[in-house]
């Protein structure tokens, strides 16, 4: 059976002085994703390798890695597509490494609640909230985010400015702003329209290229910029009482 070489970054902060590369020879099977290769290493070659994964079907968002230089879900990237190899597997960029391929995403976890990613609405008088399919289409693609962090890893602005709220968080803010049931846009505006929010984005677009769920965070951010710019112009031109 043919094999492929996986070159995996190993790093234990505090113990290793710097990350090193370790090579493993794994079977090259056409149905094997990069994650299956890593599981083979973990089960049969080297049990000390650390990485995150759970669902292996592109839903949980935990197996994001840098494979041959690009941020991908390792469960959705197949070894045969990298044949004859070697396949370079590194942790996601722009995040501190906890160990090997496991990164610390607490920066995002701290930023996410700032955009209030939940419905801000009074419950309906009776029954449930009703919504037309057209109203759902307005926000549906932004709701597909699985918090996999590929967009943060791909974003050159986040790399330069860690204060940047980031693609996924802004897209998730927009997901609720564009929901017909929600009335929280004004509450979210301070955060989304701040210098560290949508205005920090320079529309490189790598986030949308990297997104495995078709969320298009770059589009969400540009759309929000227009909303925020119009609101800012209204604030500027109209007296306080006439706003809204």
């Amino acid at each position, binding site marked *: 059976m043919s094999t492929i070489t996986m070159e995996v970054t190993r790093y234990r902060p505090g113990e290793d002085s710097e990350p090193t590369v370790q090579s493993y020879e794994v079977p090259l099977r056409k149905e094997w994703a990069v994650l299956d290769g890593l599981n083979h290493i973990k089960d049969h070659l080297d049990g000390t390798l650390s990485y995150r994964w759970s669902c292996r079907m592109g839903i949980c968002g935990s197996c994001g890695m840098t494979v041959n230089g690009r941020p991908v879900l390792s469960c959705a990237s197949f070894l045969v597509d990298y044949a004859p190899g070697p396949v370079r597997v590194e942790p996601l960029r722009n995040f501190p490494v906890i160990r090997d391929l496991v990164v610390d995403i607490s920066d995002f976890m701290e930023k996410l609640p700032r955009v209030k990613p939940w419905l801000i609405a009074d419950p309906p008088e009776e029954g449930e909230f009703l919504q037309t399919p057209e109203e759902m289409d307005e926000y549906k693609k932004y709701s597909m985010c699985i918090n996999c962090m590929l967009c943060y890893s791909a974003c*050159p*602005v986040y790399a*330069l400015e860690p204060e940047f709220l980031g693609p996924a968080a802004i897209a998730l803010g927009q997901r609720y702003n564009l929901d017909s049931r929600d009335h929280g846009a004004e509450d979210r*505006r*301070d955060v989304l*329209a*701040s*210098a560290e929010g949508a*205005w920090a984005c*320079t529309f490189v677009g790598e986030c949308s290229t990297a997104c495995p769920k078709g969320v298009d965070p770059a589009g969400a951010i540009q759309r929000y*910029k*227009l909303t*925020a*710019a119009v609101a*800012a*112009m209204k604030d500027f031109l109209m007296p306080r009482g006439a706003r809204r």
Partner: protein
Amino acid sequence: MKRSPEPLVWLAFSGGGMAAALLVPVLLFLFGLAFPLGWIEPPSEEHLVALVRHPITKLVLFGLCALGLFHFAHRFRYTLYDGLKLKRFAVLIAAVCYGAAVVGSVASAIVLLSV
């Protein structure tokens, strides 16, 4: 909320991108290729001068020049910030970029008013 002048310059930037994308290719095609190469019979000079002297033409051309320059200024500013990693000179860069756009806009206004 931290007040940011960004919405204003971004509106000029996006308006400039839109105006340039819609008008510049047509103008370049007409005045850069079609007229000089004789693909289309060029209008007479009197006709063009009369057209440019019309206030609406002047307004459109001024809008194209000014917004286009602000589009350049905004994009160049971020190229210097991030591409060349010069953000420590942010204030100076912003002043030079948008200042150049203002100077260019004033110059285009002077040219248009003097026609």
